[in-house]
């Protein structure tokens, strides 16, 4: 469990990092960005990942921040998850994102792991992508051509693959202003506290004149990327927040999923069941928080 040989760079500035990535790209060198290392380091140690070069972003302190910009909350990509977890600003203005952060690994993992790292790594069992879809988050990337903003829906491509170019660095995640009164919930089934989820669901909804509206629901841990449960959303839209309606919506959402993944801990069929149960419970929890 020792990595194969690799060259190592730790640029001092973002432009320097991008220049490096550009150089490696044009030379046909396989370079990989290292953020907190909580996923990449084990993959290197097991020689599952064998990049020729690591570009470590640890010196880019300018990417470590949490700011309110108008209603939008922006978090620098190199911000440790633990900082987001302990931030009153995050907790008070973005409760769903905050709750998701608490579900990531253990304290040690959250100390080292970065917010941006989880997005760029795009593990299908990660909580953040589902939350990003539910909240319509945006991801800011900087590359040789400058800066661009990518909607979450366009960011996650497939299993551990994003729409970032090889020469781009994810620099910031952006959370749109929270609509007051929005109910939210995130629940997951993991074998142990802190494990990757076998399946999970994140939800938001509002109650207007006794009916559910703006229902957003996404599942993670089941398909190649987090996935919106649109059938569930549509079924519940305009319905009363009642157990039977939640159950019907959850069943439709789970039923319409693409064939879920299978592993030693959960068959495809069981994962689908988990999505249904968790969706039902999330909707009830979200409704209980909505005002």
């Amino acid at each position, binding site marked *: *469990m020792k*990595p194969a040989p690799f060259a190592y760079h730790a640029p001092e500035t973002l432009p320097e990092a991008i220049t490096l990535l550009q150089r490696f790209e044009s030379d046909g060198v396989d370079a990989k960005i290292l953020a907190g290392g909580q996923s990449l380091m084990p993959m290197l140690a097991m020689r599952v990942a064998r990049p020729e070069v690591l570009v470590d972003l640890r010196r880019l302190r300018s990417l470590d921040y949490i700011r309110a910009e108008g209603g939008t909350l922006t978090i620098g990509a190199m911000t440790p998850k633990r900082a987001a977890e302990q931030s009153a600003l995050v907790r008070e203005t973005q409760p769903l994102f905050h709750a998701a952060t608490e579900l990531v690994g253990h304290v040690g993992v959250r100390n080292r792991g970065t917010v941006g790292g989880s997005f760029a790594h795009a593990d299908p069992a990660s909580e953040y992508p589902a939350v990003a879809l539910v909240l319509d988050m945006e991801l800011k990337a900087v590359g040789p051509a400058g800066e661009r903003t990518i909607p979450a829906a366009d960011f996650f491509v497939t299993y551990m693959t994003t729409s970032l170019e090889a020469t781009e660095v994810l620099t910031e995640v952006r959370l749109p202003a929270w609509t007051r009164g929005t109910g939210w919930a995130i629940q997951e089934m993991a074998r*142990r506290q802190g*494990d990757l989820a076998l399946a999970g669901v994140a939800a938001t909804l509002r109650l207007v004149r006794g009916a559910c509206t703006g229902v957003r629901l996404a599942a993670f841990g089941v398909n190649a990327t987090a996935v919106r449960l649109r059938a569930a959303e549509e079924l519940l839209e305009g319905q009363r927040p009642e157990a039977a309606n939640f159950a019907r919506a959850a069943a439709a959402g789970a039923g319409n999923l693409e064939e879920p993944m299978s592993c*030693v801990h959960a*068959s495809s069929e*069981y994962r689908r*069941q988990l999505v249904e149960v968790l969706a039902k419970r999330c909707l009830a929890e979200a409704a209980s928080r909505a005002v």
Partner: protein
Amino acid sequence: MARGVLKLPEDLPVSVPRFVGKEVTRLEDPGLVTGTAEFIDNLSLAGMLHCAILRSPHPHARILRIDTSAAEAMDGVAAVLTGEDLRRWCNPAVTAPEGWGSYSMAVDKVRFVGEPVAAVAACNRYLAEDALEQIRVEYEPLPCVPDAHAATTPGASLVFEEKGSNVIQSRVYDWGEVDRMFAEADHVVSNTFRWNRVGANPTETFGCICQWDLTGNALTCHGSYQVPRFMALGRSATLRLPANRIRIIAQPMGGGFGGKGGPRGTDIAALLSRKAEGRPVKYIEDRIEYLLAGGGQSWDRHYEAALAVRADGTITGLKVKLLDDQGAGAEGYGTISAAKPLAAFTGCYRIEAARYDLTLVATNRAPTYPFRGYGPPPHYFVLESLVDMAARKLGMDPAELRRRNYIRPEQFPYVVPSGNEYDSGQYEVVLDKALALADYAKLRAEQARARAAGRLIGIGVVSTVEPGVFDWNCYATVGVPGVGVPEGVKVAVDILGNVTVAVGFNLQGQGQFTVAAQVAADYLGVDMHAVRVATAASDVALPHFGQGGSRLGVSVTGAVLGACRKLEVLFCRVVAHLMQTTPEQVELMDGRLRLKANPAVGMTLAEVAGTMLARSDLLPPDVEPCPEANYVWTAPGRTAPDEQGRCKSYLTAANATHLVMVEVDRETGQTSILGYWIVDDCGTRLNPATVDGQIEGGVAQGVGAALFEEYVYGESAQPLVTTFVDYLIPTIGEVPSSRKAVVVTPSPVSPLGAKGTGEGAIHTTPAAIMCAINDALSPLGIEVRETPASPRRLWQLLQQVA
């Protein structure tokens, strides 16, 4: 003058024991807390090389060709080892039963995924792993034996061709009139059970540094060794060296639990050193290697079992048929785990007759090793599940059915049908204390309310016996000869009255150094900090075994008491000579050798030792100037087994009742532990905090076995669980915080009345949790008879009644 066997702490020659029986601060902890304990990977020797091992990706394949030339040509690579070297220099592992061992590196064919095929010694581990990638191996895959049932199928591929069969052993033990008990029973409760592979996972995997002395033809091995002398003997057999030329130096260990393994790693590092001109070679097993092919896999069992029960609830007979998947041979001594239940086959019950139909088979899974508890955790899962099934059938409360069948206090010493003798116990007292601690009646009322609301809540009440202080005789029927397991110490007093206890083992976590110091300090009347416990290397240590089989706390106590008694006799003679009286007139009390008639007159320990070491002119003529004593303890009264395996084997019988309340989520199949209560009786508690730690750890591993841990293999014997992402050891988030109470029934046969207690909790916890889950499921008419009761498994069951 010397006293006889000390039955209780009160018998020690001190006014009041200051350390034995107290929650003293452990001697081991300063080094552990400050990081100065020298674990093997902290140790570096001059010129040391690092070993990496290439392992088989196939469960069963012939090796056609190995090309190591590219690896050998790499800068920094000092030696490459393959099966050809082993064929030339070594023997296959000695096993029990004999003849089921492989070479430490595959010769001709591989028998499991992860079996070593080649190894490299290089100047660092990174380079060694790079070099492995340059080794080319051509395999010809063979049909494999994926599991125990396949092993016995006619025409099955053979794991060891020369044996002509995959059956390592098949025999039936008959104890008493089993057929009559079943014929006369009012009810027979029978079922099948499956215990999936689990095992030890110490914090530290195996590691060693081996150095071959090419001039002296000798070998020195530093390492994470659980049983040093045994390891030296085994290496002597495989490496063809006299055992007295093998020096095993046990470093402090980050846990063991029976799974340290190490024979293959040691042999490979030793042979690489031999090939690399005698430079020391370090091998640190990484976690993937450990999970794939280390010592961490145990108990892969398929059971059919039955209880004979009378209408009044009296259990009269037990039949257990076990098909046990040993994996690729018997090199790990997994076989003894199947024999261990002989020490307590019928648990804490007065069951008159029993039958054990045992078949051990070889497959292309990784070889199995001992794991804390050896065999009883699965055995008690089966027995206790049957008792609960009987209770349901009879409409009796499971606690009351157990009470009715307990061995009664006046029946001790009690000989169980499988031959072992239990020393003492008060099982009903333990049960009642547990029921009161948990407020059982209230829990049952809570359960009734929850059931009415549609919730699946269950309660398990399970009692077990923990055979403590293992003996080889228990394993005679699977080919381990011998009666008695020696454990030796030397106790030495220096000129200033400091005491050294030299033992043959090193730290593993349980705190036996502390126990040795407590006993020595209270016997000799010195402060515990005046006692140093040191590990002797295997070639100079007294006969010893080390940690294993809930034995060392009691054994080291017996050994220290024995050595102290010899010192006491010696010192009394010296003092009598100096004071011109007879030894009978002198006694040891509170650290002084004093005149019985006039206790104010006496000498301190330091004065006696000092006189012996520095004033030989004052000594009696036949007394050596040596204030030291050796004592090798072994359990008294052990006997050779008869043809049915019956003998007095494990010395002590501790007892516990665990009570657990669980809830099963009907929609997800997930089990939550709502409450956990434990009452145990392990006789005298030498260090109550250590006993508590043993219970906590055993519960954690029991929770793992019942709910989380499982080495899963695919249909073609491919291991599917090779990292901690998938092998799920419970964390602080999953292990319940238990409430505990204690009953103390001292052993009449062990030193100070202490009973072995390292394994009781893992004996009991899996059974208790499984029984609780089935109690929860019982209104639905379904039951889970396979461990672990994972959410997926329970959900599948729940689907049957959805």
